């Protein structure tokens, strides 16, 4: 079922496209910077969501295990970073020590969640993962007594930004005569990590493990019959997906300088899942598209809805915040209604959908 292709599934001429994309990625923060620093921040969040969506895509898209508590791993990474690099415990570890640690801890949590739930199928798994996510959030919310670990609902503030020696990612500085703001620095860092993550994902999909995941997704019994150790391979999916979440969480912490349990609600898990499904489950470019679109859509609506209302009715008729979410919800419904396999599904998936009618 492998798609025909050269290195990493990209045919020769397409490398030109890759070069164009790279150039675009390079100048993007300056273009966005012209519209305001807020847009650079949104851009950064889009990349973070790409991480999360790709991580969840491993679990849901590749292995076909519906995980509704994915944000828990994001939370684990974020809180680990917050605790190890803030005045809260007065520990200030460097980020290159914490990020891998966050990935490792999230991975442990992934296995912890995966191990007892391997027997469950489909929607039973979904509800257990959902419960797991809520458990983590409730603990984060309440672990301020008797020992104050997470500082409860107030969250942890003054988290150290990323820094290498004296070079801080949070402040504006001038490099080779070029002014570069804090969010822009984060952007470049995130883009580098994101590119690595995307390459890793592409390689993973076409590897032995990737094919094993696909086999499990399509038919678990058959997969076991051809000699795939379904237990281990499923655990691996959980662990891998979780560690992506852990890393993303750490970077979220550093970028925001503040974490609270509110950022890790079920709605957030659902958002990431929507990105995966809306983009095209199991198809990496689609998932990236989904993540970027769903990060930008609410923000564009945030800035666009109010002027549009004033233009149409001369005044603000409906609370802009609800109107923007209303449009967002409708967009989710409409996209799925007219493109059931996602905006950019893999060719295989599309073919399945048009030729076969599943009962």
């Amino acid at each position, binding site marked *: 079922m492998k798609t025909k292709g050269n290195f990493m599934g990209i045919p020769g001429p397409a490398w030109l496209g890759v070069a164009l994309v790279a150039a675009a990625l390079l100048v993007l923060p300056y273009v966005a910077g012209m519209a305001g620093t807020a847009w650079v921040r949104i851009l950064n969040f889009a990349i973070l969501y790409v991480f999360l969506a790709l991580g969840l895509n491993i679990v849901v898209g590749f292995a076909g295990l519906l995980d509704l508590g994915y944000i828990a791993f994001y939370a684990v990474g974020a809180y680990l970073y917050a605790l190890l690099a803030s005045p809260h415990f007065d520990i200030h570890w460097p980020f290159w020590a914490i990020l891998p640690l966050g990935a490792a801890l999230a991975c442990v949590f992934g296995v912890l969640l995966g191990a007892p739930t391997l027997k469950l199928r489909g929607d039973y798994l979904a*509800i257990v993962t959902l419960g797991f996510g*809520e458990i983590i959030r409730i603990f984060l*919310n309440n672990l301020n*007594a*008797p020992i104050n670990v997470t500082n409860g609902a107030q969250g942890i503030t003054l988290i150290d930004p990323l820094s290498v020696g004296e070079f801080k990612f949070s402040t504006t500085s001038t490099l080779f005569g070029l002014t570069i703001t804090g969010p822009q620095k984060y952007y470049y860092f995130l883009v580098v990590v994101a590119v690595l993550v995307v390459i890793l994902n592409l390689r993973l999909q076409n590897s032995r493990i990737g094919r094993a995941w696909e086999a499990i997704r399509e038919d678990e019994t058959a997969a076991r019959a051809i000699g795939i150790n379904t237990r281990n391979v499923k655990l691996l999916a959980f662990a891998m997906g979780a560690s992506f979440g852990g890393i993303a969480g750490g970077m979220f912490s550093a970028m925001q300088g503040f974490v609270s349990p509110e950022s890790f609600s079920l709605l957030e898990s659902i958002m990431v899942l929507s990105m995966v499904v809306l983009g095209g489950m199991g198809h990496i470019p689609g998932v990236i598209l989904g993540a970027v679109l769903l990060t930008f859509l609410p923000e564009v609506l945030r800035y666009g809805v109010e002027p549009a209302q004033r233009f149409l009715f001369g005044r603000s008729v409906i609370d802009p915040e609800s109107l923007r979410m209303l449009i967002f919800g409708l967009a989710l419904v409409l996209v799925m209604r007219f493109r*059931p396999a996602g905006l950019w599904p893999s060719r295989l998936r599309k073919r399945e959908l048009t030729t076969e009618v599943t009962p």
Partner: protein
Amino acid sequence: MDILLQQLINGVTLGAVYALVALGYTMVYGIIGLINFAHGEVVMIGAMVAFTVITSLAAHTQLPPLLILLIGLVVAAPTCMLLGYGLERLAYRPLRHAPRLTPLITAIGMSIVLQNVAMIIWGRNYINFPQMIDKTSYHIGNALITNVQVAILFLSALTMVGLMWLVYRTKLGTAMRATAQDQMVAGLMGVNINRVIAAAFVIGSALAALAGLMVGTYYEIAHYQMGFMLGLKAFTAAVLGGIGNLAGAMAGGLLLGIIEALGAGYIGDLTGGFLGSHYQDIFAFFVLITVLVFRPSGLLGERVGERA
């Protein structure tokens, strides 16, 4: 006061409401295998519509309170039924042959839409439900039970009996069970699949409206986000009992209500004061996970075969 008995009474009341909502989830799931994520929102809309009707009637007429409540239900139930039908028609039916997760996303989308519509109509603040029934308490041993609780228990029991009759004794019920077993074969036997599925949504939504009214009168408060957690708990209850199984949803709902109430009452003592009552949600989910680990198809669920 007898804390154990008191918490049991509170738990069973809450559980009855969960059970009503869980029935809506389980009927839809049993027939088309879809998690109707927007079902919690239907409960919320039910509560909100009932609230509007009740407050305006209470303010402008001299009707007896019980009649006002009844009118509230009579208006809220058809509204929700229409809403449930609309949901099925617009968001789910076109996607019946789509990949399994696609209707889940449309369900989430509809849920967001309904929440925000409710926020636009009823505002973002908590709404105080008017107190229509003068509360009186009766003693059971050393615990108290209010007349509202009695009414909730009685009404839910009655509704559930009615539902059981509908599903097991009527032609529509037979058609529903047949469709749940095998859609295609049921269709060949002359069952109108579309109508049966729509019926499941409509009936579930009517139960949701009743549950919404009950929650409103019980807690005397309503909010545009109330459906989310309630729906989540009810869905948990349905899974706990074995999703797709009517008796399972009822058992799961009651069990979850009791577990939550007891958990809230005793979790402090159990953990030596380490965990307080705000961990009650953890208790529910923890029990759910434990049950599913040992009985992967829920308490009363059948073993699920390979799903294509």
